[in-house]
């Protein structure tokens, strides 16, 4: 984690809704992902930071500035915070052209400089030629970029993005995910990004704050949080049991060989951009097949010798934490567990089919 530029320690309650508590949140200068299911309070926190909602108690500090202090009755209005805000549906002004949407926040600049900035930003986001279009005449991806342009053209001190890719169709979302990461990196503006999508969190964030039931349950660098959730609540929010950093050794015939710690895994490389070296390797517990160690042949590509660390009963299922050079979690039924004679400390073979090893580029 980098040094904190924003500290938030406030709570906000809507009538009927859960109380949202930030629990002394420190936001660094990179890209911080607020990650959680819907209703976990991500958007509320973002809106409080933007000055669009006023918390009941607590404080928000940005650098030396006080944005909010309930005790001293300080509330800096939105327009003075210098943040760039991109809501989930973008809220492009429907009656203004692309150029006027983008230029809206530059009102206090001299006309000449305004034009320079507009042109610069439109060029940077590849929006040239669309200046005179109205928002409804744009595709989803174009709208997203106009919203981003409108927010960043003012050179905000903090960028707030609410589910930036959620409004897009799947192919566009996949294409823009990598692009967005690049753009945010180039900008270098501290960014807080809200998402409920695990892959987006992995692909876009430096740090991640996991939110659950209105509370901040874990906060840290993305690889750490995702590979070592502090408790079951975080693990459930993340929803993939095994997430490990891996290193691509080779890509051949559409298959990638990945090194994870001492183990070698095979995965499909079809969705993997060329040139990617570092990846997150994600395996769901129910995709792991367990066999007795004396079995000889099997079709799955990934055949790992595993030692059973712990076994946890979850209703009709058993969650097995394995060590196969890296931590791997498997989920199996209790009868299966008995037939395999599974016990802690025992050895067996873990199998995972190549298509069930998901690779997410780790961009740094």
């Amino acid at each position: 984690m980098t040094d904190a530029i924003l500290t938030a320690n406030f709570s906000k309650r809507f009538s009927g809704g859960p109380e949202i508590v930030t629990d002394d949140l420190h936001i660094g200068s990179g890209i911080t992902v607020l990650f959680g299911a819907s209703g976990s309070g991500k958007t509320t926190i973002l809106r409080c930071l933007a000055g669009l909602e006023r918390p009941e108690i607590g404080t928000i500090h940005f650098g030396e500035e006080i944005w909010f202090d309930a005790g001293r009755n300080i509330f800096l209005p939105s327009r003075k915070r210098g943040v760039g805000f991109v809501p989930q549906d973008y809220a492009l002004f429907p009656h203004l052209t692309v150029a006027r949407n983008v230029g809206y926040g530059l009102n206090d600049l001299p006309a000449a400089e305004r034009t320079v900035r507009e042109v610069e930003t439109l060029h940077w986001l590849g929006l040239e030629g669309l200046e005179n279009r109205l928002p409804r005449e744009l595709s989803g991806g174009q709208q997203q970029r106009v919203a981003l342009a409108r927010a960043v053209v003012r050179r905000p001190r903090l960028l707030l993005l609410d589910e930036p890719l959620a409004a897009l169709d799947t192919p566009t979302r996949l294409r823009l995910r990598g692009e967005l990461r690049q753009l945010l990196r180039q900008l270098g503006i501290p960014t807080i990004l809200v998402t409920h999508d695990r892959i987006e969190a992995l692909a876009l964030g430096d740090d991640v704050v996991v939110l659950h039931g209105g509370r901040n349950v874990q906060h840290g660098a993305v690889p750490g949080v995702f590979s070592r959730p502090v408790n079951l609540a975080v693990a459930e929010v993340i929803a993939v049991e095994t997430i490990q950093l891996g290193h691509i050794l080779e890509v051949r015939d559409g298959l990638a060989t990945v090194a994870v710690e001492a183990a070698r895994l095979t995965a499909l490389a079809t969705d993997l951009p060329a040139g990617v070296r570092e990846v997150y390797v994600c395996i769901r517990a129910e995709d792991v097949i367990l066999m007795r160690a004396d079995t000889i042949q099997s079709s799955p590509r990934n055949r790992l010798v595993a030692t059973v660390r712990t076994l946890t009963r979850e209703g009709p299922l058993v969650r097995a934490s394995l060590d196969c050079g890296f931590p791997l979690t498997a989920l199996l039924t209790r009868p299966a567990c008995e037939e395999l004679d599974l016990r802690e400390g025992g050895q067996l073979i873990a199998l995972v089919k190549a298509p069930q090893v998901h690779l997410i580029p780790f961009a740094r």
Partner: protein
Amino acid sequence: MSSAEWQLVGFSLRMALASLLLILPVGLALAWWLARKDWRGKALVETLVSLPLVLPPVVTGLVLLQLFGRRGPVGSWLHTTFNYDVVFTWRAVVLALATMSLPLFVRAARTAFEEVDEKFEQLARTLGAGEWRVFFTITLPLAKRGVLAGTLLAFARALGEFGATIMVAGNIPGQTTTLPVAIYQAVENGEDVHAWTLAGVSAVIAFAAVFISEKLQRRRK
């Protein structure tokens, strides 16, 4: 139509337009406050603004007469400070028309403002815009159709105003007589053709105004 009739129509149109100049700033501010803010006494103001819709117009006229007459609180102040008289002048006509048409305008404009999603205004604020800029560049343009429809409706209502006008402005030919008052007078005097001519003109203008207003409101849906 005779030139006297043309003059009468012209005068009535000018009076109705002048009343719009009063209604627009007051009505827009009021509609915005009602649509966007919560304050104590809001319900009271809402009722007061709508009162002229249901009160007999002559009662509204009577109240205006009391307020703006030489001896009334507002009227005496205007007279001593600016030597400005209102009642039984064209100014009283404008005042009566504005008072009677304001409710229609405020209702239409308020609905139009309420239909503007606040997310646009909030976003404008994050981009550094103050409240005036937000209103004139976001709220008003997005509510344009509804506000325009309300303006036309208020204009049509003003052209047809009778009760309040006759109370505060009387019937001074060439100075305060408007179309409806002239029609009444014509019928009184048994000048049926004159009455019907003026009635026809009124109907045409009212039809056009309401027709366009409806069209504007329909298209938004």
